[in-house]
């Protein structure tokens, strides 16, 4: 790498030059507008850029705090841990990758599920975290969401799943990841037959096998503004059709225009909007 004085002044993402006198993490560059934002101000806005309304990444834990009533969350199936059924090795071993992701994120897996209250309404609640191997769905994510759906069916609870899964079905667990799509979808079909209300919330990013299974099966589908949502990745599409993709392709707004989501909901309104929809649909019939 060249070390010319001009290049060292360029800001390479992730390798920011430390500034003297400014505490680490006080400011953050917005991925949307590239402006430097006072972090506290964005955090007060639930991780939304005050300048451009870009919805930043939210961890599963923060999402739980944002959407559920304080202290009401009770986690289910926290003991489910990923295995390495294929003995998968690419440039590094999957088993190693799992350990690294677990220590980096503090999560066992890419999904956290359980129950809690939304404005005093009990719900079954699941969320995926895009920081853990792109929020991709392997056996554990599939199993957690399936159990969540089955329990929502048995306990007659509304089901809320917030997706942040750019990775789709997880490659490292091969065909077993693909089968999770069928497994969760089958559980949702039973839940549907029992009269359950499933609200699916799509956030940036929701792609591939996650978009092509539970995330698209909501009775009501919400999306955060400007999220990337789609089946095939934009690079794959570009490589296949070799023409420039239209502006705003595969965004929440694009999906709303084409009729695949019910509402675009800003993060600060998410809790109220979910509660309101639950009230319209009422209790599950017996």
């Amino acid at each position, binding site marked *: 790498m060249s070390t010319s004085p001009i290049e060292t002044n360029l800001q390479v993402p992730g390798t920011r030059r430390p500034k003297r006198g400014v505490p680490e993490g006080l400011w953050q560059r917005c991925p949307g507008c590239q402006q430097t934002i006072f972090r506290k101000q964005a955090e007060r806005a639930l991780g939304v850029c005050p300048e451009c309304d870009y919805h930043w990444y939210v961890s599963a834990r923060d999402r739980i705090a944002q959407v559920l009533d304080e202290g009401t969350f*009770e986690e289910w199936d926290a003991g489910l*841990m990923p295995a390495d059924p294929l003995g998968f090795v*690419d440039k590094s071993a999957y088993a190693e990758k799992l350990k690294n992701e677990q220590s980096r994120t503090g999560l066992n897996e890419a999904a956290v599920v359980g129950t809690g209250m939304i404005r005093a309404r009990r719900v079954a609640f699941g969320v995926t975290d895009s920081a853990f191997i792109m929020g991709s769905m392997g056996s554990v994510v*599939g199993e957690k969401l399936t159990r969540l759906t089955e329990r929502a069916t048995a306990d007659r609870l509304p089901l809320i799943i917030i997706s942040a899964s750019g990775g789709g079905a997880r490659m490292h667990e091969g065909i077993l990841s693909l089968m999770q799509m069928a497994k969760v979808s089958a559980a949702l079909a*039973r839940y549907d037959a029992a009269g359950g209300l499933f609200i699916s919330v799509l956030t940036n990013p929701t792609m591939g096998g996650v978009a092509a299974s539970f995330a698209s099966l909501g009775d009501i589908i919400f999306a955060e503004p400007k999220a990337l949502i789609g089946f095939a990745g934009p690079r794959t599409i570009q490589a296949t059709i070799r023409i420039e993709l239209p502006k705003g392709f595969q965004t929440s707004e694009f999906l709303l225009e084409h009729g695949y989501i019910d509402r675009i909901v800003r993060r600060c309104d998410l809790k109220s909007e979910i509660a309101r929809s639950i009230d319209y649909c009422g209790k599950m019939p017996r």
Partner: protein
Amino acid sequence: MPVANHRFGFERPISELEAQVQTLEASPSDDAEAREELRRVKRDLADTKRRVYSNLAPWETVQVARHPERPMTTDYLNLVFDEFVELHGDKFFGDDRAMRTGFAKIDGYKVMVIGHQKGKTTKERIACYHGCAHPEGYRKALAKMKLAAKYQLPVICFIDTPGAYPGIGAEERGQAQVIAQNMFEMSRLPTPIICIVIGEGGSGGALGIGVGDKVAMLEHAYYSVISPEGCAGILWKSSTYAEQAAAALKMTSKHLLGLGVVDDVIEEPLGGAHRDHHQMAARMKMYLVKCLKELVGQKSQTLVDKRYDKFRQMGVFLEAAMAEGTEA
């Protein structure tokens, strides 16, 4: 003199012997020695086919699964079924040529056949995007399956696709949504469903018609969460590592049987299905009739319950004993 005509490196010894057989057969001789020679070469050929095809590397399996002369859905429609009445269109947007659907008869059973079609000629391949279906294809498939269920016709799905089509129109018309919807509805469709991966089982595009009471695959087919090229591009940062990715993904019939994802593997003729369409079709027919005998007549609720349980147990994970509600 016939030339050794082989498509893949690993087939070279087979095609060389095939060329020898042709040469010997082209000049028939009463000479006992010549006849003995022909017998010897033929024996050799069979041994070589057996040796090569029982030891295919995962990447070689992918190549065989993509062989352009491999029997496709239309070949099975011609060779296995007594009749095929094509039903076109999704009654919403169009008629996807990458998905063929219609009534068919097999051994006295009336069924609904759904199948990906890759195309035989360049023109046909372009018309059906090399077997990559669009949302209208999946919508059509589901509509015909629902029709079948209404009249208690069993559904037979032939899976043979590199994947659902990645394009602007496909995204605009809800590719993700239709695949999800198909799995959702297939999981509770009140009629028998038999799914067979005949060539390429490419990801969501395959699974979109792949939820059934019986899921089988041909010996040299593959079924995978992603194409080896796609996986290599993402994890190895270059599609030239497709060979390594094919091995890592464990996508061959033997592995899938071991993982409990497919119920049965249908053996191919010696040297692969592309060498003998008729024998392959005969085995296909035998398998389908066996499944139909087993499934037809079962209560639809029993079928649907068993289908649920079958997919319910898929996946491998560890479970630590943990009291309810504690944090990990």
